[in-house]
């Protein structure tokens, strides 16, 4: 499996080469193009309720596709929905990452994806819902962001505060508390509720330079609504 980021910057794609028999998990809808040797297996079977219960019972995400090079070597091009950078991480079996659900683009077959529900209060407060993905195992992990991806490196004990809606991924050696944003923080102006994460190192936190929620509400004001 080889991967390469094409057109790095705001409108990138990632090209992933698969040897015969190899497969990757990709966010459904991420695939732009692929060789005819690649089969797409969608995981959303049994309707929404089935997928939902499967998701909650087994941790299997229902918005994944499996792209499998079942009929020979081939390649696929993947792109995220939103404009923004792509970053490729290499998991070595020891390091693990938590990924905000929209941040996941693709993962090698050696990567285990667990959709973890955050602890109830954390999930409800953080505005990211319950869907946080835990990535472990070995292999390539492709993340995407809205805007640019910025890497924050934390030494043991070092703290950093991040607006919730800017979070993309963070290593599991960090710990964090969710705090209500003080007035100085402008978090999401749609909900009016600002929450921030206070991270504590060691570890790495990836954040995105734009806030999808904020952008959404900014766009919304230009859409005429018929009354």
């Amino acid at each position, binding site marked *: 499996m080889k991967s390469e980021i094409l057109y790095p910057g705001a409108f990138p794609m990632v090209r992933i080469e698969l040897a015969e028999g190899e497969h990757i998990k990709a966010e459904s809808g991420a695939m732009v193009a692929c060789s005819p040797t690649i089969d797409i297996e969608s995981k959303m079977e049994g309707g929404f309720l089935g997928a*939902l219960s499967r998701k909650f019972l087994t941790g299997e995400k229902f918005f994944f596709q499996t792209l499998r090079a079942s009929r020979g070597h081939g390649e696929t091009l993947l792109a995220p929905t939103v404009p923004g950078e792509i970053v490729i991480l290499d998991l070595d079996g*020891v390091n693990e990452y938590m990924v905000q659900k929209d941040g996941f683009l693709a993962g090698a077959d050696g990567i285990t994806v667990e959709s973890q529900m955050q602890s109830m209060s954390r999930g409800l407060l953080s505005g990211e*819902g319950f869907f946080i993905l835990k990535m472990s195992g070995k292999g390539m992990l492709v993340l995407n962001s809205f805007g640019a991806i910025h890497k924050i490196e934390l030494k043991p004990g070092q703290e950093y505060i991040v607006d919730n809606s800017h979070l993309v991924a963070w290593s599991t050696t960090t710990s*964090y508390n969710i705090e209500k944003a003080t007035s100085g923080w402008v978090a999401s102006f749609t909900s009016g509720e600002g929450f921030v994460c206070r991270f504590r190192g060691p*570890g790495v936190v990836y954040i995105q330079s734009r806030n999808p*929620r904020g952008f959404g509400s900014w766009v919304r004001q230009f859409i005429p609504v018929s*009354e």
Partner: protein
Amino acid sequence: MTDFHPNALCFGDEFPAGGVPCLVHVETQGLTIAFAADGNQGQAEAVPFSSVAVSAGGLDHDQLVLSWAGPAGQRTLYLKNSDVIRAFRQAAPDQLTMPLERAVGQVRRVRRRHRMVWGIAGGSLLALTLGLWFGNDVLVELAVDRIPIEWEQKLGESAYRDFLTQHEVAKDGPPVDAVTEMTHRLVSQIPDNPYTFEITVVKSDVVNAFALPGGYIVVFTGLMKEAERLEEVAGVLAHELNHVLQRHGLERIVKQLGFIAVVSIVFGNQQGLGQMMKQLGVELMTLRFGRAQETEADLTGLQLLHRAKIDPSGMITFFERLAEKDEGRVEWLSTHPMSSARAERLKDRLAGMPEQSLEPFTFDWSKVRAALGAPTGPGL
């Protein structure tokens, strides 16, 4: 590199912030740590137990954290591997055991608490799902009670906006003024009303009106045309308003999809959920309420009309007249099957109500009918 299987992450000043994968061995006097990185596999760092401090850390507080001041600076080791942790506990000397056991206890407590929280959450989820599955209305109501009005509005609003973009909306004119005034009159009589009602008149010959969760009401001009008296339209409005107030739509959704689905729809901004939302929007429009819900909307609607000083008999005559029409033409009947029992129940209830003086509206109903293109005149 191929047979190097790291089991821990090591952090230090000159290491990358993500940590360096390393292989930890527990010996009798301490630890040896081998790094595979820059080709010096053979060079293992030995750390005596005497220099190590122990704690628990990581995202879920479930990792064993060892730190010490080595010759090259401060080092911190994050361990998850249970074999290594067990070996460490067996080999570590007494002075380390205390804080270690405390740390392990801490980890265990956190894990137990997590398991308990998840057990409770999972258990109640299962109970809720099963309850919903077998149509336990008490559980549905319990779940609905916990859904904030804002969520309900989110659910209803996107379906409402979607619907309006696909239909011709009457922006002004006598029918819009009439419906607006009637709605205001009715809404002003709702005590502690948590909803901001939005009402739209849609230009369509379809005889229909519906209410979406969150307070979004649509009236078709086709329905207004069928009404001979304004009280008849007011009757439909009062009925639909009460579907919203009693949260009937939400009860149906929860019953059909389960509480968690509602939660995920409201919180998810993910593509799949967006599509689900669209699908749900379609369902919202054609939502069939249960018989008990219809009766409730009828009766509370009747009371609302009474309080608003609008003649409630219009509701009954309209329902009766619509029922006589060809069913295929009257969309409203498909979601509101009319029965003589239904009309009788309303008549009974009306007979038991105290006398109420009626208050006229400021608009002229014959002008509204003229604007709708309905026949007007004294013959009506």
